[in-house]
């Protein structure tokens, strides 16, 4: 392979004149994590709400929730990013549109909102599945005890549902971090975009992408281990996913 490897490239100064290439990659990692985390908070809040609506005892609400999920699941994330970034400011009244366009870090906020709504449809699907996996006696018992519907969700159904769907939520969280790379198309300088920029300035293609790949792998490993620990702590005793109860004598 006639390719000139140069691993020292990471310690050379990047075109901004201040930081080394390694530092720019780490700054990109910061944006990736910030986008992923912020979008995840939004997705969790919206997704829980829509997931609850889809199990509510009202056909009208269920249809509304289903429509929401279908809308955000059947349009590619990239197209959704473009809709939020290019189309929304044009459809708003011109004052609001101009304010949006001139916002500092507009691509960051847009990425968070787009990724948050996109992921919320998937979270809603999980929350619904979690609630439906509970024995229907649980809701009946809660109502029979005099709890209102919101109370039954808050104190009985959701605490159980979230503990059951924690493993798939973990992989959805990892997906959110990975999907933040799509935001490079609207100008967010996250990790993949920094690696791409480094490749364009130095022509050291494989060093730049190797570094980005290693950083993504490390993020994955750290999140997976943290979530495993959380899963062990919150597993519902007696369910298949639960840690084995003391079986040794």
């Amino acid at each position, binding site marked *: *392979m006639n390719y000139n490897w140069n691993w020292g490239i990471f310690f050379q100064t990047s075109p901004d004149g201040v930081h080394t290439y390694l530092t720019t990659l780490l700054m990109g990692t910061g944006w990736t994590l910030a986008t992923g985390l912020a979008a995840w908070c939004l997705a969790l809040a919206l997704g829980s709400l829509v997931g609850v609506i889809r199990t509510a005892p009202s056909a009208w609400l269920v249809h509304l929730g289903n429509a929401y999920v279908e809308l955000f699941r059947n349009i590619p994330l990239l197209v959704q990013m473009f809709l939020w970034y*290019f189309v929304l400011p044009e459809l708003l009244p011109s004052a609001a549109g101009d304010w949006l366009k001139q916002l500092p870090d507009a691509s960051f906020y847009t990425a968070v909102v787009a990724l948050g709504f996109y992921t919320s449809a998937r979270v809603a699907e999980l929350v619904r599945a979690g609630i439906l996996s509970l024995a229907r006696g649980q809701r009946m018992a809660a109502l029979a005890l005099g709890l209102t519907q919101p109370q039954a969700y808050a104190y009985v159904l959701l605490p159980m549902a979230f503990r059951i769907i924690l493993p798939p939520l973990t992989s959805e969280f990892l997906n959110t971090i*990975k999907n933040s790379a799509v935001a490079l198309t609207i100008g967010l300088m996250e990790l993949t975009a920094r690696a791409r920029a480094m490749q364009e300035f130095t022509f050291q293609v494989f060093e730049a*992408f190797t570094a*980005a790949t290693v950083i993504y792998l490390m993020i994955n490993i750290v999140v997976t281990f943290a979530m495993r620990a959380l899963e062990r702590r919150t597993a519902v005793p007696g369910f298949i996913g639960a840690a084995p109860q003391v079986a040794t004598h």
Partner: protein
Amino acid sequence: MFSNFDFDVIVRSLPYLFYDGMTFTLTLTALATAGAIVFGTLLALMRLSGLPPVALPAAGYVNLMRSVPLVLMIFWFYFLVPYIGQWITGASRPIQVGAFVSSLVTFTLFEAAFFCEIMRAGIQSIPRGQVAAAQALGMTYPQTMGYIVLPQAFRNMLPVLLTQTIILFQDTSLVYVLSITDFLGAASKVAQRDGRLVEMYLFAAAVYFAISFAASLFVRRLQRRVAIVR
């Protein structure tokens, strides 16, 4: 808010959007799905083989592909495929491949990791007794897999495989980062040429939605039809 909409720009660019753009998107989706199912099934068989030297590389490959963003992989393969081509053909310099071949290789290799996990679940859903029965009848490993296990695994997993194909169809829009004229790329080029971002991106979203939604309804109906009655 639709008062200054120019619906004509959509009508004018329809041939370009569909003959150039959608053809690329659909061809890429179909070929990449076929390749990824074959390679993914192989990976699944490797992961389930029980031989560490065979299972570990497959597991490592799948976990690597599942840990990095597709966008990064698109960039990786765009630069890597010419070198792989050189290595395979023994040419003296990296081989120039077109945008289509490069994205086809990317999507086949990337999505194979996801199809692998689906096929692994499908194979594991077959009762162990069937494998034992096949071996008792004197069938070899390829016969057991080819005639007994894989046909049932495919049937059980058909809805999931098709759902993954819908995801792949949506994911192909990401070749935009290589400035390729897929459906979204075509829409984006017209949008920028005519300064009609709102119309073109809303139209692209509507088309993606219509195709994906129709396909997912089809999968739901299929799911009820192919389910094996037990």
